Each structure stands twice: as C-alpha cells, then as structure tokens.
C-alpha cells in the first residue's frame, strides 16, 4: 500500500515537472481582468501589439463589467485566485491590498517619471507605488451638440446665469436641455465636483483636504445650489435613468448637453457615427472659473502571487511608454504620458484645451475626500427633489471629509 502511494506521488512529481517545462518552452501566460467591455476592441489591439513585440508573452484578457468585476475581484483576492494583472479602485482599496501583501510594491520596479504630474501623484500613495494608471486618465467637462445649439441660436454657457438662460431657451423650443442619468448618482457627483471646483479651484481643493476650507462654506454652498437649480433642465425621468442609457440618449441627440468625460466620446461615435459635438469646461458658479475634473482610469497592480511578476511588470512599463500611450490616446481616452496627445481627434483636443484653465483632480482619489463622492450619490436625489436644502446637502458632504490637518 505504502509503496503504491510513493509511486503515485513520484509519478505525479515527474508529470508536474514535465508540465512546467513544457510551459516554459511555450509562452508565458499573463491573465488580466479589466472592467470595460466597451473598450474591448481597443484594448485587444494594444495587447496584440505587445504580443507581437514580445512573442513569448500571451496576455489573456477577461472583460468583466464594472460592478461585477469588483465583486469578483474581492472574492478572488481573498481566495488567492486573482489574475496576474488587475485594477483595484484607486485610493484606500489599493493601499489596503498593498499593505496586506496582495499586490507587489512597484516603487523601484516601474519608472513613472515619464507620466504627467497628476498621474504620478495618483500612482503614489504614502510614497509607494502600488498601481499604475496604464489606461490613461479622463477629463470631464460639458458636451453639447453643436447643431442643436446653432439651430436654437445659443452658445456654450460659461456660468450659471448663462446656463440657465440656455436651458430656458432650449426648453422654450421643445428641446431637452440636458441629459443627466442620475440613477446611480455618478453624474450628479461629477456635476457637483465641477461646480464646486469652479469656486474652489485646485488650490481651494487642497485647502479642503487640509481642513482650512470647508464644503459648507457659504461660497461653496452655491455649488450645491447650482446643482439643485439645474434639475429642471434635466430630461424626463433622469432620477431613474441608468448611466449607459443616458449616454446613448445623448448620442442619439435626445438632449442638447451632457456632462461627460474623455472616455465617453468613443462610445458616442459607436452609437451615432455622425455625431457632431463640442466640449467645454462646465459652467461656473457665478463669479467662479469654469472647471473640468480629471481622474485616473483603471490603475493596474501586479498580483503578489503571480508566477510571472517580472513579465507583468514589464508589460506595465511598456503600457506607459509613448507607443502604447499613443494607442490609448487615439482609441480610448486621454494619455497620462507626457507629450502624448490624440493624433487626429478634434473633440479630444477640445477636451485637452478645456482642461487647461481650471482642472481639479476628482475628489475620490484622495483619502481626505474619498467619501464625498458616495455622500453626493446618496444625497443628490433629495437635493433635486427639494427634500434638503443646499446648505444641508453641503453639510452632509463636509461631514465625511477627513481633513489631513486634523
């Protein structure tokens, strides 16, 4: 009996070794989970380019829609079955995984000096690099249909007064001024961030993080009031409209304006190839400066249990070199790599333009203001419905700010 057992074990070992050797002679397989099925073609083209240049690497991509990805990734991480490459949410989630040893510390392994300042700052968390935003960044502004604006004799608004005027004119001629799919609260959150940024600016936002300025300061409350006041400009049923449906409605010219990001444009084109839109910073609270907000796309980490960490790290490094960055900029969204801009895309160029005057980082990427995003999601609907005042709304947001100075 015992002899049989040992024999079986030995046989197993031999087989296993043989298997490993065969794999080594074969390709190195890297698994990668990504949460944007809508970019599938673009991402696969980039991966194909990489595999062409590195014939010994085979990257197996699995596209999982956003929300399910998070649920699956959490489970897989806990079970030690996560892929080699994956993106956690930037901020506390990445740091927690890093401290738990679930992802590799990339600080000395990846050179990010060629990336924009914002990207570098986003990649660093307490001085360490846990993840790298390899699929660029997105800047959010206000999209508008040029034709609808021309037909109705209006021009892109720069502040609240102008916005309300445009809204009124469009409504008078039977046009829905704004598509705002508010079902999951994401759009209202971006609207608020841009409105607040028009008052705060990048410096003011730093002060909020430091605790020397507050979201319920009277001048910042005006941003909340702006948010409440534009609700009547939204399309019918906005509170129940899903994000994806809203984007499709805008692409199909069911409304004149949409808050949107650089990553949305490719989707519009897919829905409506003849779309003719322009993009500007979001109108400012009266007296403020029109603002855009910028956030990092998926920031990828390397699984610390990966069998091929070096290959995975090499891939990340390649992704932020100009060649791959250019592909990202041309087919997905704005690049994080310095000097790379969309080669032939006037709308993306307009977006870059828009972000030059007053661009603020999205609040949720910072530990101090990380919870503000969720607080907006939770409370925007009551603000729209008039159940709470802009003052109360702002106070709820401020309540979840954890100033770093404190």
């Amino acid at each position, binding site marked *: 009996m015992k002899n049989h057992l040992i024999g079986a074990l030995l046989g197993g070992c031999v087989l296993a070794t043989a298997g490993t050797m065969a794999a080594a002679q074969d390709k190195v397989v890297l698994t990668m989970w990504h*949460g944007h099925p809508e970019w599938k073609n673009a991402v696969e083209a980039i991966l194909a380019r990489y595999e062409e240049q590195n014939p010994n690497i085979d990257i197996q991509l699995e596209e999982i*829609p*956003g*929300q399910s*990805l*998070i*649920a699956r990734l*959490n489970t897989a*991480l806990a079970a030690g079955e996560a892929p080699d490459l994956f993106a*956690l*949410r930037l*901020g*506390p*989630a990445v740091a*927690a*995984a890093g*401290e*738990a*040893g*679930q992802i590799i510390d990339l600080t000395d392994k990846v050179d990010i000096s060629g990336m924009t300042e914002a990207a570098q700052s986003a990649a660093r968390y307490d001085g360490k690099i846990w993840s790298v935003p390899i699929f660029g960044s997105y800047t959010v502004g206000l999209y508008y249909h040029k034709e609808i604006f021309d037909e109705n004799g209006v021009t892109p608004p720069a502040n609240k007064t102008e916005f309300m005027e445009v809204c009124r004119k469009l409504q008078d001629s039977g046009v829905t001024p704004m598509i705002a799919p*508010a*079902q*999951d*609260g*994401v759009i209202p*959150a971006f609207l608020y961030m841009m409105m607040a940024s028009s008052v705060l600016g990048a410096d003011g936002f730093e002060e909020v993080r430091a605790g020397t300025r507050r979201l319920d300061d009277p001048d910042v409350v005006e941003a909340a009031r702006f948010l409440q006041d534009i609700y009547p400009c939204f*399309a*019918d*049923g*906005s*509170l*129940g*409209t*899903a*994000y994806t*449906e809203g984007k499709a*409605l805008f692409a199909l010219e*069911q409304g004149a304006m949409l808050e949107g990001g650089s990553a949305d444009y490719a989707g519009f084109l897919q829905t409506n190839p003849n779309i003719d839109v322009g993009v500007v910073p979001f109108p400012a609270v009266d007296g403020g400066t029109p603002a855009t907000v910028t956030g990092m796309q998926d920031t990828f980490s390397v699984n610390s249990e990966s069998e091929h960490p070096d290959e995975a790290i090499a891939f990340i490094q390649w992704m932020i070199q100009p060649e791959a960055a250019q592909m990202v900029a041309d087919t997905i969204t704005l690049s994080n790599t310095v000097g790379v801009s969309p080669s032939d895309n006037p709308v993306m160029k307009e977006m870059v333009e828009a972000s030059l005057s007053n661009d603020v980082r*999205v609040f*949720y*990427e910072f*530990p101090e203001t*990380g*919870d503000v*995003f*969720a607080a907006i*999601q*939770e409370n925007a*609907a*009551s603000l*729209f*419905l008039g*159940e709470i005042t802009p003052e109360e709304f702002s106070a709820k947001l401020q309540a*979840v700010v954890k100033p770093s100075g404190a």
Partner: protein
Amino acid sequence: MLAQSRQWDGRGGRRRRQSALARRYGHLLFVAPGFVFFIAFMVLPSLAGFAVSLTNWTGVGTDFSFVGLDNFVEALGSWPLYRAAWHNLIMFLAILVFQHTVGLFVAVQLHAKPRFMEVYRTILFLPVIISLVSTGFIWTLMLSPNIGVINALLKDLGLGFLARAWLSDPDLALATVIGVQCWNVLGWAIIIYLAGLQAIPEELLQAAEIDGATGWVRFRRVVFPLLSPSFTALTVLTFIGQFRVFDIVYVLTGPLGSPNFETDVLATLIYRSAFGGSSIASNDVRMSYAVALAVIVFVIMAIASTFLIRVLRRREISA
C-alpha cells in the same frame, strides 16, 4: 437485538449479518453526500460570514480587526435599514395580495379548462422562465419616459395624460417595481393554485353541488379552504422571495434604489454596503458591515418564516 438479527437472517436467507452499528446508523450514509455539500456550501460560509461581521474588514486587504458587535449596533441604528425593510414589506404585501386575488382568479379560470388553455398557461408562465435580469432590462426599456413603448402607446391611445416617468417619479417608482414583479410572479401563483385546484377531488365538488352549494358559496366554503396548502406555500415563498429580492430591483432602479432610495430594498442596501454604489468610486465600502446587515436580515427572516409557517399550517387540514 439478537432476536431481531436472527429474524433478518431468516428472512434474507444466506445473507451476511449486519453489525448493530450499520443497522442503526447505516441510513446516514445515504444522507451524507448531500449533507457534506450543505455543510461546505451553506453552514461553513454562514459561520465564516458571521465571523467576518465581527471585524472591520473592508473587502480588500487582510485587516480583520475584531470590533465585536459594533457593526450590528450601527446597522440596527441606521435609518436606511428600516427604510429598505419597509420597502420589502410593502412589496411583499402588495404582491401577496395580487397573487391571492388575481393569481387565484386566473388559476380558477384556467382550471375550468377553456379552449387554448395550454396556450394561455404557457403565456402566463413564460415570465417566470425568463431571467429576471432580462425581464428587468426589457421593462426599463419599455418604461423609459424617453424611448419607452409604454408612454408612446398611451399617447397613441389618446391616454397621454397617463404617461409618467414610471421609474423616476418618487411617488410611482415603488409601485412600478411592484407592477413589474407582479407580471413576473403571476405565473407562479397560477401554477401553484392550479396544482392545488387539480388536487381537489371532483367528488368533493359534486358533493358540495348536491348539498346545494354553488358558485361563490362553494368556492368560499369548500374550494378555498382546500387550497390552504397552496396558500401557505405561496405566502411563504412570496415572503422569502420578496425579502431577498435583488436582481429585478437592481436592474430596474440601480444599486441606489433610485429615485432617492424610494425603491431601495435590503438586498440592494447590502450589496451597496459590500461593493459600493457604482463602479467608479466607493471608498465607504465595508464588507463586514454588509455581512452584519445580511446576518440581521437572515435571523429576522428565519424567525419570521418559521412563525409564518406555523400560523399558516394551523389553518391547513390534516386529511
């Protein structure tokens, strides 16, 4: 014992003698495979879940600091839990009434075997087979105030004044979600009641007929009491189903139970607490808190279902 085993041997002829142990506990072997799966996939995860609910685990990382019952205390003191439970309760009651009235009525009509009964039955049962996610998706499209066919149809019929923003009007959203669910569960009610009706012996109805009971009286005094097993089954199933409803709500009104949480239910609340309200950013995600919510719901549901079954069984007849 000895005498017994001799008897066995005698009856079975030249059979091997069973040990007392095998005879007493042998049957457990037949239960074991299912039981092992039950332990592995139900009991252990539940216990693990309960353990997690006593920590501050966020869902990522390995920080499992023990926080005692803090999560439970916080959950029981939080307004969203009661709001969500209230919505579950309304859904349960509304759908219960719907099933026991419309569902029963349709089942009785079908039981009378009208022409094309098979066709009707198939059509009515179809929604049950279609996945809730597709159901929900189709309904979001139909109910959309922008592109939906329902408002368009109402306008074409000259009933434009009835057109509404079904899923985004805070006063209508919950009712709309209930409506969609009614459409979805009607098939269940019909099948269960139809089975109950078919189980009533023809002679019993003839006896009632001869006793002078017809129509409504016969239904109320004879048929309906005999349907009490169906009533129990449907009520309990609906109770459990409605207090754990998730997919259809999620698809129809999103993870936040829009608009303004008017359709937020326990499952979406738990989901949101565990995985966040959107894929973009949710730093307030706390798996352990979500699990605590789930444990609370589980315990209350278990108690309530047991109580419900007790009460309803008492109504039933033992024949």
